[in-house]
């Protein structure tokens, strides 16, 4: 198992390196050259200045030299400066990372807990109205574009009930201690968290229902019932522990999808996270920031996948013992 784990970590590093190379290539393939972009942002057109910039940024070096310099810089945590803010991209991202993490974990926790509960209940009575309702809800939730759900929530709830703020993470005129500040942020979190959560709730409830249906029909569950164990023990101890494995897998693999959802939801609710930063970077033609967020997001996906793999081995004893996965 240790050996396969080492291989898995090596693979993750390879992927990270590949993402860095991709980032670099994107800068180069894109029409327009970085020097004129920087000069353009400062509304300068002096050819001498552009020449100077080319030299400062090493744009005249051979491709491979530039690539090597880029990789070493990135590995040292230098992603260049934002064209718009003039600040290091890394600092900008560090400021915005927590709001996104808060939003994403809230949405995922909400979806995971409610999804598994609802899916399990539905699986116990597969032909009940309740079970059909879960299926319908999951189809509806999947088919609604996230940004539209967010706007509808704003129209229905945000405008009519003042309790729910319509944008941002803090009230503009906010004045209070740390505790009140946290409560204020939580109040702002409800609508965007719900919007992002609904997409995943739709998926997890459906997945949990399917997975539990299969598990509850299996031989070991029948054996557990035959032994006279309580229904609670059968469903939670024997059923859920096995039924949850596919959900954990999907959860880990979906980390990237959560980022994508966060961009749209943050943009609707003006939530000051990485997604909003990336979106603003598009409108401001701030390529270094855009590529920085892409790199950070990809690396977190790679790390999340790696952790899922490890977690998967811990939950599933069959893999823990044989050291093999089937997929």
């Amino acid at each position, binding site marked *: 198992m240790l050996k396969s784990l080492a291989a898995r970590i090596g693979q993750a590093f390879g992927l990270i390196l590949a993402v860095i190379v991709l980032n670099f290539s994107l800068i180069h393939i894109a029409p327009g050259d970085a020097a004129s972009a920087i000069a353009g942002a400062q509304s300068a057109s002096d050819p001498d200045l552009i020449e100077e910039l080319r030299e400062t940024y090493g744009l005249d070096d051979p491709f491979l030299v530039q690539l090597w310099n880029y990789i070493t810089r990135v590995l040292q945590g230098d992603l260049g400066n934002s064209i718009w803010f003039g600040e290091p991209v890394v600092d900008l991202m560090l400021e915005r990372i927590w709001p996104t993490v808060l939003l994403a974990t809230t949405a995922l926790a909400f979806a995971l807990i409610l999804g598994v509960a609802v899916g399990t209940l539905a699986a116990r009575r597969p032909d009940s109205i309740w079970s059909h309702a879960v299926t319908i809800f999951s189809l509806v939730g999947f088919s609604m*574009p996230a940004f539209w759900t967010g706007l509808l929530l704003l129209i229905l709830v945000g405008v009519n009930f003042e309790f729910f703020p319509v944008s941002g993470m803090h009230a503009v005129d906010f004045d209070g201690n740390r505790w009140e500040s946290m409560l204020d942020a939580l109040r702002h979190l409800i609508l965007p968290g719900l919007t992002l959560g609904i997409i995943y709730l739709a998926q997890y409830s459906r997945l949990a229902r399917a997975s539990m249906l299969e598990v509850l029909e299996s031989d070991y569950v029948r054996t557990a019932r035959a032994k006279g164990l309580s229904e609670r023990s059968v469903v939670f101890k024997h059923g859920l522990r096995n039924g949850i494995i596919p959900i954990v897998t999907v959860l880990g693999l979906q980390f990237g999808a959560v980022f994508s*959802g966060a961009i749209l939801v943050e943009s609707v609710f003006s939530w000051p996270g990485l997604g909003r930063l990336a979106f603003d970077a598009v409108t401001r033609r701030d390529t270094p920031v855009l590529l920085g967020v892409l790199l950070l997001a990809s690396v977190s996906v790679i790390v999340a996948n790696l952790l899922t793999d490890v977690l998967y081995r811990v939950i599933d004893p069959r893999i823990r013992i044989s050291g093999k996965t089937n997929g």
Partner: protein
Amino acid sequence: MAELFTTDVGADLAAAADEETAAAPQRQALKLFLRNRSAVFGLILFLAILIMTFVLPFFYERDPGDLIARPHLAPGSEGAPLLGTDQLGRDLTAVVVYGGRTTLRVAAGAAVMIVGFGVMIGALAGFYGGKVDDVLMRFTEFFQVLPGLLFAIVLVALFNPSVWTVMIAIATVSWAQTARLTRAEFLRLKNLEFVKAARAIGASDFRIITRVILPNAMPTLIVSSTLVLGWAILFEAGLAFLGLADVNNVSWGLAIGRGRAAFTVNWWAVTFPGLAIFATVLGLSLIGDGLQDAYNPKLRGR
């Protein structure tokens, strides 16, 4: 040459026999599909959207960019078109009807690319296995770790939004899933009797892949293509909502993006285009589920 000729006839016979036996399950599946109420509802929903976007424009000739009345006219108010007007006074009925053309064209184009490329990579990886599989799967994995929407945004933003860049960007970030699915199907099918038989009579690899294995992977791929189309529609809508679309061709997502600034006074400008997206994707999801059940009756309701 003579030898080649006979092997080809042999492979043709094998393929023909295969198609004949495949026809009966197809008919069976169609019957099951048509008996499934929610699947038929999905089909009707989707057909209605297609008629609205591709037939209705002949009877409702408008330019969705024209300013035809006062801004913010609610649906049903005096002088307002059926779905009201947006914040500039454009006819929302025209925006929804014509916007569907752009959305569906871009999504369909992207879906064709996704399925085409995904099936090709997946088929090669699954069929050949070994080194080929390793290389192709590493390649696929790379595209799977890039966060889809973010990568698509980067591509569209760097190469300027047009119908083609949006299509290619959606396809670039989405084909990996189809490739994995196709690979799994090929791994499952490639060691079965009929493939061995085709190989024994000397059919070429190309022939085995395209004429022997692929037809048997079709049910899975058809179900997946339906879902891929729905996914592409949501994806296009998301990009357009963020402003990453050809502004000269209005689409549903773009319309919502334009209307969002005034949502407090004009709920209809964001609601109706969104309803169109929702109805289309819901229709496709129901069709996909229905096909899944029809092809695998044992898994019904899973």
